[in-house]
């Protein structure tokens, strides 16, 4: 098993699936769907294998030796002349406690999204080809340890997403798709700039002792690798690290999406087909926060320390603002979308706390929000498939008509409002504990607690509007859940409950990495202090 490149497998297996799909005749829709489900299923299995082989004690983050399942070989190697530095880019995959939860999340959510895509009937072939391509992109983002590779995967997602929204989406799909595309592309050009800037600021020392410019993010985290002249080098008194940090942060913030860059989200969600909304909210949003934790924090610890309060502030704004916006929505899907904005705010708040509990809470919240919001979107999809509208006020009293559906929805909603016993509670509690424990952002943490009140407000209100009260005449024919829908919802429900009762299952996974990153940030504060950065 050690020699089997399982990360490459889990990343590129969907591509294989895509190629097969492309060669299948477009009439064999069932086969195509089945194949996709199978491929994603294999991914889940692979993820399980990874989990079973994963060593909980290793930290990762900035220490190459403690990364696991590392696959590293020279990808691009260009021997330059004297006056031109050689370019060496690695194909460098590896996972630590930060990536594993995301990897699991991606595998699971994609699998479930694949199942939920079964209802697609319009040019099936194209859909599933795009779907699988997207899958590879997402998986790659979470396992890549080379900035260049990461960027390739990051961009790889855009196009499939554009088509998936634009072709199979709702009435205003073109608009939503282009909006999504533009926003994210705008974000990624910032990332690209920083990437190149970093490339010229740090030099990695190879085995043979030669120093070369590098995209290796682990090397980029080590101040020893920086040169005095690099524009993004902390040793360079006239460096542009601050601007670069902002650029990188905006790049990721657009994905999160952080206020005020969030406006693509509601449109994209509302227009996208159910499965895609699930993936969008379940996985893509996490990439923003993941990116911040993986790149902004360890590569720019100095600036992070300077700006930490603002990160927390925006987290708070996201929480309150998203919740208030959600409260005013009439469209079921929009409401869920805004709730995502609010919940991602918790993640940012937790990240800003810079202590184990807070960051652990943030990562856990990423995972939990992934599962919960996926479930919510699936549920919206269920009702939309039946009623073909999403207007909250149009419903009412569905509890008697579709009791099982109501049951699942109730669980999901309660999870979303952080009810103890369900997964989100622990993560949100940890976020608060962490944020409260970090003196600079304590006040923000206190204000943010309003978020859980508002959350309860709009969620319960929605619950009431849709399910409680007396049943409207026209809905008394809606059937309850089908087998396929059970298949999608039950796993998520189980995960949500399980993690609510036994969060250690996930926390232990990330614990050592969390400690590692916290230690790294603290050390960095001292180190950079000694460098006279602060």
């Amino acid at each position, binding site marked *: 098993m050690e020699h089997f490149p399982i990360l490459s497998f889990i990343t590129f297996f969907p591509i294989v699936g895509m190629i097969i799909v492309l060669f299948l005749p477009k009439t064999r829709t069932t086969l195509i769907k089945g194949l996709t489900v199978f491929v994603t299923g294999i991914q889940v299995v692979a993820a399980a294998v990874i989990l079973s082989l994963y060593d909980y004690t290793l930290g990762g983050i900035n220490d190459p030796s403690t990364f696991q399942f590392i696959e590293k070989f020279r990808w691009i190697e260009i021997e330059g002349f004297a006056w031109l530095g050689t370019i060496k880019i690695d194909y460098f995959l590896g996972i630590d406690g930060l990536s594993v939860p995301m990897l699991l999340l991606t595998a699971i959510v994609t699998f479930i999204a694949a199942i939920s895509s079964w209802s697609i009937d319009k040019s099936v072939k194209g859909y599933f080809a795009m779907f699988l391509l997207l899958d590879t992109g997402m998986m790659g983002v979470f396992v890549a340890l080379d900035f260049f590779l990461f960027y390739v995967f990051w961009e790889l997602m855009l196009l499939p997403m554009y088509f998936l929204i634009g072709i199979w989406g709702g009435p205003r799909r073109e*608009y939503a798709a*282009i*909006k999504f595309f*533009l*926003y994210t592309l705008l974000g990624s050009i910032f990332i690209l700039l920083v990437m190149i800037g970093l490339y010229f600021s740090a030099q990695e020392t190879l085995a043979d002792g030669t120093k070369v410019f590098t995209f290796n993010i682990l090397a980029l985290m080590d101040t020893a690798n920086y040169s005095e002249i690099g524009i993004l080098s902390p040793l360079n008194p006239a460096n542009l690290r601050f601007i670069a940090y902002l650029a990188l942060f905006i790049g990721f913030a657009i994905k999160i999406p952080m*206020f*005020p860059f*969030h*406006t693509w989200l509601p449109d994209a969600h509302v227009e996208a087909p159910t499965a895609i909304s699930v993936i969008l909210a379940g996985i893509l949003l996490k990439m923003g926060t993941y990116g911040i934790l993986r790149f902004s924090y360890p590569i720019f610890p100095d600036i992070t320390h300077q700006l930490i309060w603002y990160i927390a502030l925006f987290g708070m704004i996201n929480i309150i603002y998203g*919740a*208030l*916006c*959600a*409260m*005013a*929505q009439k469209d079921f899907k929009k409401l869920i979308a805004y709730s995502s904005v609010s919940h991602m705010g918790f993640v940012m708040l937790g990240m800003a706390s810079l*202590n*184990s*509990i807070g960051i*652990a809470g943030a990562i856990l919240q990423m995972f939990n929000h992934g599962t919960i919001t996926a479930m919510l979107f699936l549920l919206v999809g269920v009702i939309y498939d039946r009623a073909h509208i999403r207007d909250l006020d149009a419903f009412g*009293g569905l509890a*008697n008509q579709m*009791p099982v559906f109501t049951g699942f929805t109730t669980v999901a909603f*309660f999870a979303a409002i952080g*009810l*103890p*016993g369900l997964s989100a*509670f*622990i993560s949100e*509690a*940890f976020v*608060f*504990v962490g944020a*409260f*424990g970090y003196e600079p952002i304590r006040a923000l*943490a*206190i204000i943010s*607690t*309003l978020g*859980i*009140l*508002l959350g*309860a*407000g*709009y969620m*319960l*209100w929605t619950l*009431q509007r849709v*399910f*409680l*009260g*007396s049943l409207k005449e026209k809905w008394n024919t809606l059937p309850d859940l089908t087998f396929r829908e059970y298949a999608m919802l039950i796993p998520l429900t189980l995960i949500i409950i399980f993690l609510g009762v036994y*969060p*250690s299952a996930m*926390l*232990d996974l990330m*614990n050592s990495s*969390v*400690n590692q990153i*916290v230690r790294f940030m603290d050390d960095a504060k001292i180190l950079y202090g000694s460098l006279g950065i602060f």
Partner: protein
Amino acid sequence: MTEQLLIKFSILILFLPLIGFIVALLFGKRFSRIYLFENIVLFISFVLSVILVYAKLAYFIDSTITSEIQWITVGSTTIELGIELDNIAVLMILVVMIISLLVHLFSIAYMKGDSRYNRYFAYLGLFTFSMSGIVLTHNILMMYIFWELVGISSYLLIGFWYEKKSASDAAKKAFIVNRIGDIGMLAGVLMLFITYDTFTFDKIFDQISQGILPFNSEFWLTVTGLLIFCGAIGKSAQFPLHVWLPDAMEGPTPVSALIHAATMVAAGVYLVVKVFTMLTGDALFIIAIIGMLSALIPATIALTQNDIKRVLAYSTVSQLGYMIMALGVGAFTFAFFHLITHAFFKACLFLGSGSVIHGMHHEQDIRNMGGLRKKMPLTYATFLISSIAISGVPLTSGFLSKDGILAGTFAFGSLTGHWLFAIVGFLVAMLTAFYMFRLVILTFHGEPRNKDKYDHAHESPFIMVMPLVVLAGLSFFFWYTPNPLDASKGWVVTEWIKPPQISVPENARYDFMKTDILAQDGKIDGYPVSYSQKYTKAVHQAHYPAMLLSLLVAGLGILMAFVIYQWKKLDADKLALKMKPLYNISYNKWYFDEIYDATFVAGTTGLSKLLAKFDLKVIDGIVDGSATVTRGTSTFSGRFDNIVVDGLVNFMAYLSGFIGLIFRRFQTGKVQTYIVMVIFSLVILLFIFKSL
């Protein structure tokens, strides 16, 4: 009988109802009789709890049994799950189990024929589980968790008949108002955690007694205490968050009896009891004031309400306020004692009202009742007994506990000079007696005011009456003390319930709580010493005057009730007219709901609407506005609009399009024009760069 066994028992007690819940929920559709299973498991845990209490009091009366397992490890800190059995906890669990069991039995008949029969019992199971969790847990995080869980189960049960808008509204209101309190509590928990890096009560208290304080200041200790108390304000429906409880009466009556009279609302009191040791004097004083207000205001409201359950609801709030006030003035023992006694007779009252409502075919307005005495004698008898008990007439449990509380306030007055609590205490006692008997008289005495309803009225079946009888029986003195006039002679308040060692720094306490030397040695003229010698003295000096006074006021209240409603010597309506403003205030519940709706609710919803608009209009296109304006003015952007998108993007697109348009303008198609432009640009370039 080893400690481990007790722990096992308590775990069983805790989880059996949960199992009942899950089973009843999952198979409720399939098997119609599944509720029986739920009842059985509950009965088992009831039996276990009896054994538990017996064993605890018999063998480990002075020791606290704890056991914990590690739950989460993050960074350096670990969080445990644990159980802590002290006398208070076991007594509380017993109370919970007794009432829960009785309510179950009562419900079997009361809820018969409901479409979601099994679901109902499932929820009851969930509640029982969460409530026992609150009681048994040994750390405040778990307590918070179960705190939320009871909130949810109460939400589910209040909204059980969700077809009624009022029901679902009430449920939502209850949950959200509770959440407000919980946020405060959460903040308190966070304060504790960041200070002591643990959630476990004992560890926290130990560190406090070692003088470790939040931010090293007693002020912050006070704040922390009050923040945690916020949780109690929410759950125990204390002023100003009491508004949810009356609405909660939308739920089935047995639920009101179990949750909103006996147990869950008492959880707030229980919380204060649990953290009593870390409450500073200032904190206690504020708590006392809040308790006082909560005791007084609802009592005045209860005078004029006509819905039988609402009257009881307000009396519940008022009684809870009583307990809180008692804790505030340091009458720890009697506060908890009153919690127990009140649990029984208030449950009895609610179930009685349930029986009445059942008998009257879901009629709740007392103006349509009257004379039911003959129709449902048993219900009447039990109801009467409990009313006597709550009014504080001797020979009842209520007398004992209430008298103790009044004595406490009295003593507090004498020690600190704050007599207000005592005065309010007695006033509320009188009001209580008055409105309770108003209720009794209007319901059971006199002539039936609604004939046909009266004709169809009937006594409830045995399974409903039996719980009433049991609870009424529990409202007599002899369960608690041999001496009907003095609880201090009995075992409950002397042996079982003991005030804890105060761990707050000396100078942050009430004076009378400061430890003086004499307090250490055993008893003072037969009484166990609580806190300090002079406090104990003061309490016992206060005892007899308090007792007499309370008898007086209770009698007065009852008398007035009879005068007005039984013998009609005074016309109630005339009285109402005479003091119109007062009457209105009371009748309209001091306009709390209106005020809150006007301020907070409207505020929030308004803000959210505003922000949503903001989001749509402003964020989604800072210059969308200008873009639209220009769209109006310019001819092309209509065409342009469907090429690209709105919002901020729209603006960028608009701008880009505009620039593009400028560039397009050059492309006239006339080659000579191009050449002229080339010449011009040559000139310009030359001018630009000749300087460089």
